[in-house]
């Protein structure tokens, strides 16, 4: 048999024959919306973080070996050694840099990246269906694969020919000479669903890239894809001596500032949304306080019937706790529900294209993390209990004799 004060607290929130009191319903809804806001935002931010991380890994590789920004000439031996590691799924020599590309006099300035057509496996996971139109096999020294959004921007399509100018061309032309553009045929379109790649990257063969950048046989970096991406840092440390004097970094190091912005964004949004829960807890506190004043006589009578001050404290704190717990759980359930229909909501509210334009992805990514759910629930429940504590103290301080006089 549970204590009577639990019974009273429960009944005050869920009265007999009325189901749920207006105060309890509104309070629970307020907390649920707060938790929805908090947990929903965190889950979306986690989704962004996870998806961006995955896309960054896909496009840059897990481990990158460089030579302080200078081209690497003796790379073949290193590549062979690194390829021999069982942890390495793919090792690719890579050159990349900005170029000017024109089609029908529309200039764009994408990043041109090499794609090793000779080796079996590239660091770019093409098996994920990145090629949407055309064929990857058709990529040779005279062709190019355009990012899909880049192609749209240029109004170019598969089969068209684009002109490419590299910075090295300007260095190599003499006075009063005009650099000759490299004419490359578009053989496929690349769609990674990562806006910064799809709208800003084009792929050419390694040989063509070396030529465009006057690299000779050199490359800019060696990129590795690992079997277990989570081991990237350990692996980087292991090979750093072997590849010395080349420097080894992970995808995390390469994108540190970008990822920290996303983390910071998550933190800031969480802090702002926490205010919603704090406001909800203020409302609960005020409502409970009003309830204490309204129930002066009942409280006095309970004291006369044998209730102790701590029983009265428990009644009101428990109401806060119940609102917190039920509101938090309802908030979690609401989050899952809203996130389930997120695509339709995004479609209605902002439209997919605008989402892709600003947030890199054409669909809203979501990743639930237990720690976020736990923190949101504990915070909401703690605040609600605290909100109940202040009126509880007021009620407990009431003397039965005084309370009965108030009638």
């Amino acid at each position, binding site marked *: 048999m549970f204590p009577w004060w639990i019974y009273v607290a429960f009944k005050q929130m869920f009265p007999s024959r009325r189901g749920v009191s207006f105060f309890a319903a509104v309070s629970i809804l307020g907390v649920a919306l707060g938790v929805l806001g908090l947990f929903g935002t965190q889950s979306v931010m986690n989704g962004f973080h996870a998806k961006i991380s995955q896309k960054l890994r896909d496009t840059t590789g897990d481990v990158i070996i460089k030579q302080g920004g200078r081209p690497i000439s003796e790379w073949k031996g290193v590549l062979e050694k690194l390829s021999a590691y069982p942890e390495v799924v793919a090792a690719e020599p890579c050159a990349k840099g900005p170029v000017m590309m024109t089609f029908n006099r529309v200039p764009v300035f994408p990043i041109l990246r090499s794609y090793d057509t000779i080796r079996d496996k590239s660091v770019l996971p093409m098996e994920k269906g990145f090629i949407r139109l055309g064929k990857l096999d058709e990529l040779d020294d005279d062709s190019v694969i355009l990012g899909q959004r880049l192609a749209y921007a240029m109004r170019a399509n598969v089969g068209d020919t684009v002109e490419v100018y590299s910075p090295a061309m300007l260095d190599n032309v003499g006075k009063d000479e005009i650099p000759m553009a490299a004419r490359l045929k578009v053989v496929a379109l690349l769609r990674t669903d990562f806006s910064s790649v799809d709208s800003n990257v084009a792929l050419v063969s390694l040989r063509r890239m070396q030529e465009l950048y006057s690299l000779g046989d050199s490359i800019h970096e060696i990129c590795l894809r690992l079997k277990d991406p989570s081991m990237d840092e350990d692996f980087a440390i292991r090979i750093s001596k072997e590849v010395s004097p080349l420097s080894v970094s992970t995808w995390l190091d390469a994108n540190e500032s970008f990822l920290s912005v996303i983390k910071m964004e998550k933190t800031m949004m969480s802090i702002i949304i926490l205010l919603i829960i704090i406001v909800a807890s203020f409302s609960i506190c005020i409502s409970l306080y009003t309830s204490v004043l309204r129930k002066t006589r009942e409280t006095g009578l309970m004291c006369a019937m044998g209730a102790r001050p701590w029983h009265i404290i428990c009644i009101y704190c428990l109401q806060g706790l119940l609102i917190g717990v039920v509101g938090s759980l309802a908030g979690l359930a609401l989050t899952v529900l809203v996130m389930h229909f997120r695509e339709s909501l995004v479609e209605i509210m902002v439209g997919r294209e605008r989402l892709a334009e600003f947030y890199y992805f054409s669909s809203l990514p979501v990743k639930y993390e237990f720690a976020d759910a736990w923190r949101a629930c504990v915070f909401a429940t703690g605040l609600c209990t605290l909100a109940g504590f202040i009126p509880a103290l007021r009620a407990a301080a009431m003397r039965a*004799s005084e309370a009965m006089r108030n009638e």
Partner: protein
Amino acid sequence: MNNPADDNSAPKEQDSACGYQNGGGIPREDMYGAGAKVQIENAVNADKEIGAGEDLSKGTPVLEAIDITKSFPSPDGGKLEVLRGASIKIHRAQSVSLMGESGAGKTTFMNAVSALERIDGGSIFWDGERIDKLFSGAQAARRARFMGFVFQSYCLVPELDALENVMLSARIAGLYKPFKTRKAARDLLEKVGLKDRLKYLPSKLSGGEKQRVAIARALINSPSLLLADEPTGNLDETTGEEIMDMFLRLCSSEGASLLLITHNPDFAKRTDKALKMSKGIILPS
């Protein structure tokens, strides 16, 4: 009236970890020693002045209050003496009414004898056990089982139906047993004429019905003493009559003693003993 218990220190707020101060829960003869017996008898004699013609063969009084004093701070910084040595003795199954003009100290006296209010001086015994010096927690625990209250405003918990309101008193007293208490509550509500209103919330009951529920609630723990402060004050004359009839009948049938505070001389006449209070003192009847 001399107070034989004056030698004891005035009741203070509890300071003992176990909840008792000197003498808490000890029969008064044992507490004061053999020498004190004479003083206690004096107190009984003093009581004779109050309750003329009462039968002392009834044994240990259910309630005995001796020379109770109580004052409150007044707005001008002084003291407002509300009780100035009020005494009372109520025996088992005896009904006593207390009348007096407004401000005479009736409600304060009721709060004092029920240990809802700390007293400045005097002593209070419930079934022979000195109560006024107990820790408030111990007082509350004893009060829950020993006393029932009926107030002018019914003080029903609005979220509970009639049956639940009656059972709440048993829950608080720790006497709740799911089937037994429910049956007892049903029986009591039937006795007060609310057989068809068991599941009604207070908001759906009339004033008379609410007071009937409050009476059933006061009786659910089979208390030794019922304290009723103007129980018909909010009711019309006819309903008040009905309620009072039923109340007195039930007190009698349940064997509970009654201290009734009322302004109605007709109701007072129907109790075993009618007392008057004036300026903080209970006058000889």
